[in-house]
């Protein structure tokens, strides 16, 4: 279904104009406005987390520790990890793009539980400010993983306060997850069957299942750490009868699925972007849909691969290794199907497309390096080195952040009603690709050569590669800063967007840009398949 009309006549004011004033934003229950609130919050947290990353990269320019104290370095990478994982990556796509798009994509007026949606934002903002206060008051030096006994016995930072902030934010995740599942179950428009849903909705549904089932386990684990610190109930302290390895089991039972909380939404965005730039139905719709579900399920069974060298049973390690390899199958299905969709299509080369290519390439590198660390013998060599740092940054930054930026550009006209400057969009996308690889590819080599993570000084032979990495980080900083400026500029000076500037299929493009408060004047009846592009399917731009 490609809307040929360039302008959908509408007399209804858009969701941005229907009400004015701060109160109309802070008390809104409109999913689109809540998405904007989330966008502002995660942009702020991304900025804070990036500053900490900058401090790390500046420190690592020279082998000696001369910019930060050892303790200050520990606090910097902890701040970077905590903020980026819980306050940027986890809420970014589900709460911003998911919130905005899911009702539009399934033909609904709003999310099913609008007030819970707003509560989710307040919990994220509240938990974030709480954590920020603790981090500014002196911070914490445990790393984002809060490993015991460091966090319970030896750390002298504000462990409990930061844990409380993460705990509060966990409720935000749970609320968003519940809301997405309930919305997809109950608010699909007539005719919008499960297999007509855009793949973005499928992957966010799978993400939400993880959010709902994994987050409570993190909550209880963190509560037990607090109980040990405050009351001396030594669940993780061997002197008191406890077991420190148990913490790692519980923590990774949440945190490995959390990796897929960060990645699956990005995969959903890419499925939309691939079809829109190819102007073709996605290759193997149901395979891509079910691979999201498979990743969500398998993701719960691989946590032990974080503990290959932590003293768990060899047989457990073998099983976890095998299961970790299995994750490669649904991941590969997605990558192949995206690429196959491009086959024989007349491509639209624009910024979202460049971000898509960035995602696929970096995901491929991150994913294959994941096989290295899933392999028992190889992991013993690279465990706790920069190889692992490079691996998960390729997935969580290279892939997930590219998807977020790609999605932001693609839906920017729908969200704001303005077009972003296309040339600048392309420049930023290419700069991001270059900057990212410059930053993180050397870290693969550094790790393979044996440079351990989490030290503020290193032996001099690693300096050259570290300097390449740090200069790459500067390029990456420019690539992240550029969209902030030109997207803000476009809000005021950008040309007005039409309803469907990309000639893309999907219900969200059938309503005006920006959409009216209740999205659809009449309940849409869906009598077409997802990605309903014309059969010749090779049409490019006009």
């Amino acid at each position, binding site marked *: 279904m490609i809307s040929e009309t360039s302008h959908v006549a509408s007399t209804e004011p858009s969701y941005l104009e229907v009400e004015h004033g701060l109160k109309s934003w802070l008390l809104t229950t409109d999913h689109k406005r809540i998405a904007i609130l989330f966008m502002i919050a995660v942009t702020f947290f991304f900025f804070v987390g990036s500053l900490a990353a900058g401090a790390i990269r500046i420190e690592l320019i020279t082998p000696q520790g001369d910019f930060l104290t050892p303790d200050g370095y520990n606090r910097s990478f902890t701040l970077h990890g905590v903020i980026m994982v819980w306050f940027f990556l986890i809420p970014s796509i589900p709460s911003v793009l998911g919130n905005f798009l899911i009702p539009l994509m399934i033909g609904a*007026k709003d999310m099913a539980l609008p007030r819970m949606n707003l509560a989710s934002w307040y919990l994220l903002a509240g938990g974030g400010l709480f954590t920020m206060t603790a981090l500014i008051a002196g911070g914490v030096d445990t790393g984002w993983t809060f490993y015991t006994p460091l966090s319970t016995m030896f750390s002298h930072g504000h462990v409990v306060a930061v844990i409380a902030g993460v705990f509060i934010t966990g409720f935000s995740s749970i609320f968003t997850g519940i809301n997405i599942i309930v919305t997809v179950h109950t608010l699909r428009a007539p005719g919008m069957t499960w297999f007509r849903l855009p793949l973005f909705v499928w992957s966010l549904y799978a993400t939400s299942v993880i959010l*709902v089932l994994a987050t409570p386990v993190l909550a209880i684990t963190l509560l037990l750490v607090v109980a040990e610190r405050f009351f001396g109930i030594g*669940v993780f302290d061997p002197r008191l009868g406890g077991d420190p390895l148990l913490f790692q089991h519980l923590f990774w039972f949440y945190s490995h699925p959390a990796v897929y909380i960060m990645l699956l939404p990005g995969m959903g965005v890419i499925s939309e972007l691939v079809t829109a730039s190819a102007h073709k139905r996605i290759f193997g719709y149901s395979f891509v849909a079910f691979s999201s579900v498979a990743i969500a399920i398998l993701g719960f069974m691989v946590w032990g691969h974080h503990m290959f060298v932590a003293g768990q049973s060899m047989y457990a390690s073998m099983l976890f290794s095998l299961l970790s390899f299995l994750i490669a199958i649904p991941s590969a299905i997605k990558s192949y199907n995206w690429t196959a969709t491009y086959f024989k299509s007349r491509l639209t080369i624009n910024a979202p497309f460049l971000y898509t290519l960035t995602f696929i390439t970096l995901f491929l590198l991150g994913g294959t390096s994941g096989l290295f660390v899933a392999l028992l013998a190889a992991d013993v060599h690279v465990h706790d080195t920069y190889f692992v740092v490079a691996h998960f940054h390729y997935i969580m930054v290279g892939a997930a952040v590219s998807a977020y930026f790609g999605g932001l550009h693609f839906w920017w006209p729908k969200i704001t009603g303005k077009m972003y400057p296309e040339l600048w969009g392309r420049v930023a996308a290419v700069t991001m690709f270059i900057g990212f690889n410059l930053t993180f590819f050397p870290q693969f080599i550094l790790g393979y050569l044996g440079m351990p993570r989490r030290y503020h000084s290193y032996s001099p032979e690693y300096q050259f590669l570290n300097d390449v990495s740090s200069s790459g980080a500067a390029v990456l900083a420019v690539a992240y800063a550029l969209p902030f400026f030109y997207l803000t500029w476009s809000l005021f000076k950008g040309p007005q967007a039409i309803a469907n500037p990309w000639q893309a299929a999907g219900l969200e493009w059938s309503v005006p840009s920006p959409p009216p408060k209740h999205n659809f004047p009449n309940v849409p009846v869906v009598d077409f398949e997802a990605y309903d592009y014309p059969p010749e399917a090779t049409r490019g731009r006009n």
Partner: protein
Amino acid sequence: MAGIKAPVSEQFHSAGQRREGAYLGMWLFLSTEFMMFGGLLCIIWYYRLAHEMQVSKAVEHLHYGLGGFNSALLLTSSFIMSLAIQAARKAKMAHLRSLLLVSVGLACAFLALKGYEYHSEYQEGLLPVLTSQAPLKEPAARLFMGLYLISTALHAMHILVAILLGAGIWLRLRLGRLPMPERLTVIETFAFYWHAVDVIWIFLFPSLYLIGRPV
């Protein structure tokens, strides 16, 4: 929690759709509770299997009679909550209000008894935090008491929330703000939560008080 407050319902087309949404939302919320207490139960069972003898030394000291009586109180309150739903369906408002009050009263009795139990354990020097745990020699036995305290206190907090919600609903019924059966969803989703908190206790009670007790 879905359906407890007055719904903002413009996104729904029909009452049935709204009800379906509220039910599903509550079930998902309860699944988070089960995952959280499930994690705790896994920990309890891990230590039970790792240190069977030491843990049974701690189990020996627990007041299983009090715990058993408390279980009976909770189960009765759940039964009465089911009767309250029946009354709500038939719009017997006075009946509904008094059943709700009895149910909430039983939960209050549970908390009072739990408090008394903590007090006796404190006097016997069993509790971590406040006492030296002198009667328990082994670290694993002391740790088990710690897990006992954490899990029962967390459960008691859930009972407290249930009591507050129940009292709030009773007040709204009293003020005539919840016409039945139109707003049945409110009482039903609340009852889901009520029963779930009971079900959690049914797993906690034997895992803490009964198994491993010397006969």
